[in-house]
């Protein structure tokens, strides 16, 4: 009992110190690290979004990369090629992503498991094809550089995006937690567990799956918006099938269903490539190895180590 209080006190202290560290980071960390932390935030948001669809509802989605890209490209194009302000461009990208999610979700969600996996995968391919098709707008294979974002005459630099990402990540985390602990979260988790049970309890399965899918799409788009505005560059290589698999990996490693786990997974899998830069050619193989190790030794992912009962 005394041990638990000991650990708990230090846990809160650790969290507070960590947050303080994040806040004062820009004072002593070079650009490289700030950018890396921003990327970690983007990864966390992607993972948190997928966690709602895959973790709560139990449905497979390999189309995450496409919505990541939709958010990125719509906001970048509207901002740079049409001169819209950042908030407006971002809002359009989020709404656009939600609408696309709704339109393809309705037919796609009638599919089960393998077919759903393939269908969402196909959508990612479709998105890549569209990016190449409309080269004039998207810059095709080479992508394009975004104009600097200006607010009241000031240019918003990488420090702004660093803080913006941290705040967004925290907000998304709490949003996902609220949903998890609510009636909607319980219903979605029941769908994952047993669909006929969910139906017998008055849960509209199709409705909730579509909702989860749209939330996944909008959050992926948010991640895309932050990515391209913070690095001021958009290119199709970031939104491939490999990216979708990476996000699935983040959720699996973190512990399917756990939001904190999704954050861990997101951070880990965004940091890891940077440290393994020398092994770039083996990246996919290393990802595969990590997945196998996790599945064998940590079936509940990193979240399984932290707590026996999943409440986060």
């Amino acid at each position, binding site marked *: 009992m005394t041990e638990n209080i000991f650990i708990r006190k230090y846990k809160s202290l650790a969290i507070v110190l960590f947050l303080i560290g994040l806040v004062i980071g820009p004072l002593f960390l070079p650009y490289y690290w700030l950018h890396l932390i921003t990327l970690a935030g983007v990864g966390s948001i992607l993972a948190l979004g997928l966690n709602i669809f895959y973790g709560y509802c139990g449905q497979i989605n390999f189309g995450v990369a496409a919505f990541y890209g939709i958010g990125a490209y719509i906001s970048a194009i509207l901002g740079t090629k049409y001169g819209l302000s950042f908030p407006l461009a971002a809002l359009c990208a989020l709404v656009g992503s939600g609408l696309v999610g709704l339109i393809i979700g309705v037919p796609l969600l009638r599919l089960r498991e393998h077919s759903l996996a393939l269908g969402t995968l196909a959508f990612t391919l479709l998105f890549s094809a569209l990016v190449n098709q409309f080269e004039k707008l998207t810059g095709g294979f080479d992508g394009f550089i975004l104009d600097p974002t200006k607010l009241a005459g000031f240019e918003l630099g990488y420090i702004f995006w660093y803080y913006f990402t941290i705040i967004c990540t925290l907000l998304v985390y709490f949003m996902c937690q609220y949903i998890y602990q609510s009636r*909607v979260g319980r219903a979605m988790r029941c769908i994952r567990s047993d669909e006929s049970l969910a139906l017998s309890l008055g849960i509209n399965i199709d409705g909730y799956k579509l909702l989860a899918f749209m939330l996944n799409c909008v959050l992926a788009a948010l991640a895309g918006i932050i990515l391209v505005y913070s690095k001021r560059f958009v290119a199709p290589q970031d939104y491939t099938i490999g990216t979708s698999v990476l996000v699935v990996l983040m959720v699996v490693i973190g512990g399917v269903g756990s939001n904190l786990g999704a954050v861990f997974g997101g951070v880990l899998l965004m940091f890891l490539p940077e440290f393994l830069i020398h092994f770039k050619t083996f990246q996919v193989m290393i990802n595969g190895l990590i997945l196998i190790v996790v599945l064998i030794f940590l079936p509940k992912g990193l979240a399984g180590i932290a707590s026996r009962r999943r409440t986060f």
Partner: protein
Amino acid sequence: MVLLSIQKIKKNFGGLQALVDVSFDVEASEILGIIGPNGAGKTTLLNIISGLENADGGRILFNNEVISGLPPYKIAQKKILRTFQTVKLDEEATVLENIMLGTHIWTKAGVIDILLRRRFMFIEEQESYNCAWEVLKLFGMERLADTSSQKLSPGQRQLIQSGRAFVGEPKLVLLDEPVGGLIAEEKSKLMEILLLKKEQKLTTLLIGHDMPFVLGICDRIVVLNFGQKIAEGPPSSIANDPVVIEAYLGG
């Protein structure tokens, strides 16, 4: 007053006639038992009433409204809840969370309400929590609240399932073998609760194999054999009915 009316229900599985012109009424506040040898069609009938399967003929009326053909979640939303012979629980959730699932039909908060932290959402959540606790206390299982459903005994699982149905405050509850796997103590507990609920105007339709239980608790009994209704009446007449006895002895 007739709450549920089963009218000439037919069901075929390929060439097999699972249900043949089954008709009977369920009166409000009564406890009606459905019995019959294995394969008589009892669970199929329950599946059809709850909407998980569609009948090939006939119709079902609830409160004079046709419910046959409606999707299962819509039927549940009309305050008709059921349990399953092979207990279905959310295996990843705790006992309390499982029982709270039953409150889904009388809560309304949607994702927007949850994200906007609206007051009624908190009130609903508190009520769900309180009602779930009340049910746990009713069954004497408070200490199991935070236990993972994977760690329960078969009897406990069965009782939690029933508890989940009651917490939804249904008008009609369909119980499929509610005493399957229960020890004597648990059975009498459930009987107590069913009688209490009956006083609270709940209508119960239950399938049973445990004769003492069924004969002891039901107001009336319907007997099925090979998909047909072969008898209907109070326990006393059913227990002595030669047709029923023959059906069970396979004569």
